[in-house]
Structure formats: structure tokens, C-alpha cells
């Protein structure tokens, strides 16, 4: 359970809870009556990688593969790989003993590089001093489902009686209006929602449903418009 700092249209705010909505589990793959386990294993050593083989055998690589198994190290291949530690290799292939510089490269839809800049951290913004708020724009549900792909939904939950009243009223208002309210983060409430540091920014759309004293206040998340690529 995580917190979200939420403000309603009357500019009343509260720190409340949110939780993901669990999906039914996918079928497990297996063999009937047999206990099996999933493992990662070594399939090739460095000497068996294509680039190394090509450097070693040159144009004779195809024949070498026909004549023998130069890509397989019988002593190593098949070894199970457990926990590992990440390391970086320099362009020369040596282990880097300092942290690498990180750059963000922006690549356009056509595959060309558009921009390059030093990597920066994007902080989470859903439980900060500035609450996530209704950004002012509301959209009919029927329009929203044809404009955005909602990849995930989180349920907003009360934590006590006061926040129950707060959320039930929000859900009822949205249900009565039949709309989704766009939510924004940041001081002006215009930024996309970022749930964890360097996480994917999402546009948030709040939906309310009410059934007597029960309510559903659902935050639908989208980072994809329904458009045709040009």
C-alpha cells in the first residue's frame, strides 16, 4: 500500500492510500506430475560469441562450425547462473573501475537521434507537499476510452472515517457527472504523475463509481494515445 496526496476541486487535500488492482494469475507452465524449475544458464563463453568466433576464424567460420563445435565450451556451457553483480565494460572491453557517465539519448519515431543530454533523476511526485489535483479538465468516459490506452489502474482507498467521506464525495461527484477528471502533479497541477524515482510519467484520469455507501475511486493511467503513427 502506498500513499498519494490528493486534492479535490474544492482544494481540500488529504494523504490517502492507493493500491494496484490484482489481475488473475496467468497459468503456470509445467509438465503434469513433474516438479520443474526455471533457471538461467550459461549458453556460451566469451570465446563462443559470434564476434569472437568471427575474429578467430574469419571467412573459415562456417567451415569450422561444420567441422566441429568451436562455439561450445563443454566445461562451462550449461552452468547455472545465480546472483550476479552488474559491472560495466569500457569500449575496449575492460572492466570499468569507476561509475560510468550516464547520458539520455532521445530517439525520434523515425529512429534518428534527436537530442542527447546528461542523465538526470526524475523524482516521484504523487506524495509530495504539492498534492496531486484535479487539473480542471474533465472528459466524458466514452471519449476517454477512444482516445487513450489505459495500461493500469490503481484504486484510491480511505484510511479512516474522514478520508472515507472525502473520497466517497469525490467518487459520487464524478459518477454523477459521468466523466473522468484529469489529474496533474506539481505546484500548478500540470505535470504527469511519476510514482517512483525515474519511473514512467503517466497521465492520470480519476473515475468515480458509487453503490450506496460503497465507492470505487479509480486512477486510470495512460502513457499512450490512440493515434496512428505517421
Amino acid at each position, binding site marked *: *500500500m*502506498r500513499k498519494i496526496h490528493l486534492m479535490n476541486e474544492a482544494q481540500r487535500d488529504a494523504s490517502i*492510500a492507493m*493500491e494496484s488492482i490484482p*489481475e*488473475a494469475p496467468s*497459468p*503456470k*507452465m*509445467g*509438465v503434469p506430475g513433474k516438479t520443474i524449475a*526455471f*533457471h*538461467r*544458464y*550459461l*549458453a556460451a563463453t*566469451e570465446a563462443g*560469441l*559470434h564476434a569472437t568466433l568471427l575474429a578467430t576464424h574469419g571467412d573459415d567460420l562456417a567451415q569450422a562450425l561444420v567441422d566441429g563445435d568451436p562455439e561450445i565450451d563443454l566445461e*562451462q556451457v550449461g552452468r547455472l*547462473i545465480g546472483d550476479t*553483480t*552488474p*559491472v560495466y565494460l*569500457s569500449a575496449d*572491453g575492460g572492466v*570499468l573501475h569507476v561509475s*560510468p*557517465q*550516464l547520458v*539520455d*539519448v*532521445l530517439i*525520434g519515431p523515425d529512429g534518428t537521434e534527436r537530442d542527447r543530454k546528461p542523465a538526470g533523476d526524475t523524482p516521484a511526485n504523487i506524495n509530495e507537499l504539492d498534492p496531486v489535483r484535479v487539473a480542471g479538465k474533465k472528459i466524458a468516459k466514452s*471519449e*476517454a*476510452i*477512444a*482516445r487513450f*490506452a*489505459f495500461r493500469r*489502474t490503481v484504486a484510491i*482507498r*480511505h*484510511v479512516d472515517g474522514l*478520508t*472515507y467521506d472525502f*473520497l466517497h464525495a469525490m467518487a459520487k461527484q464524478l459518477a454523477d457527472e459521468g466523466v473522468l477528471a484529469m489529474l496533474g502533479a506539481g505546484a500548478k497541477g500540470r505535470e504527469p504523475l511519476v510514482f*517512483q524515482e525515474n519511473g*514512467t510519467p503517466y497521465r492520470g484520469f480519476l*473515475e468515480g*463509481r458509487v453503490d450506496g*455507501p460503497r465507492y*470505487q475511486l479509480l486512477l486510470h493511467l495512460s502513457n499512450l*494515445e*490512440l*493515434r*496512428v*503513427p505517421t
Partner: protein
Amino acid sequence: MAKSIVVTIGGIESSFALEKLDRAKLYGRRERRPLDPEGRRCERAELTRDGALLVRSGMTAQGYFDGDGAWIPNRDLVGLDRDGTPLPQVPSTLGVAQPLEGPIPPEDVLDLAVRTVYVLAPEQIDPALAAQLQAGAAFRFAFNYRADYQAETAVLVANDAGVFALVGRPTPPPWASIDLPAPASFDTTEDQDELDFEMF
């Protein structure tokens, strides 16, 4: 090329060619690249815990093994339910007419946990269906890209830009009530993992 999505309503078939839609195709993408001190691109690798093996990209594979360490070929694997009983295989729906259900309420579409989005190019479309889609109606049909052990649900929607299929699994949300407040504890690691939005 994949077979078409074929749907039927009122006894009239419509078919659509499909192409997967993702963010990179619409907006491009961001790549975070590590550079060495000379500004050249680095490669991320792994070192085994005993330090004996440097694992580079392309050196590993993964698979299922039995208790004796014998590899199980993928063709021997089947879907199992919670009790370990084999599940029937669900055939691909591509190229096979699927009945459309609807129009369905927007809430049903919002309850779909969308995993894949396809842009659909109509090959043959029932004019009545086209008109309903353009008017904002949504229709549901069974979808399974390839034969496996779990069918998915697709929703057909349209806007001024085109026709789309949203594919996912219905995930109805739970109701909240006054006697069921959320747990007061917010700081468990397990719950933080539950909301890893980078997993999308």
C-alpha cells in the same frame, strides 16, 4: 504477416489488418546510455558471485529443468491450473470470425488491464459497425494472438484517427466501504514492489 482480425455482428463479417502500437512509434524513445571516461559507449555485463565468470550479452539462456537437472524442451510444457491439472490449449483467434458483443459500457473498457494495442486497418467493414464505432461505441470480442493457455479480451474502439483494438484482461476493481479502510501501514517492501510502474 499476421492473419487478420475477423469479427462478426448481426451475421455480417468485418476484417482488419493489425499492427502493434507502442510509444516508440508515436513519440520516439529515450535510451539511457553509460559512457566510459573517454565518452565511449560502455557495455553492461555481470560478474558471478564467485568472481570467476564475466557474463556478457548473448552468453546466457534460460529454460525449465527437472529435478535431475535435465532441460525440458518448450514443446513439452503445458499450461497448468493451480492444482497442477493441464489446461486446454486456446487456439489463435486470428483469421477466425469472433462474435462482437456490445456496445459495451465505457466502464467495461476502463476495467480492462490493457497489455497490447493494435492499430487496425479495415479490409472489409460492415458500414453499420463503422457508423457505431465512429459514434463512440465500443465492442468486445475474444482475442488470442497465438495458441496458448489463456484467452484475452479485446475491445474495438475508433476515433478520428482510426480503429484500434485494446487487448488485455478484465480486472474489475474492488469496492471500498466504510468498514474496510486501507491498512494504515505504508512502508512495507512487498507493497512497494507491487507498484513497480517500470514493469509496464
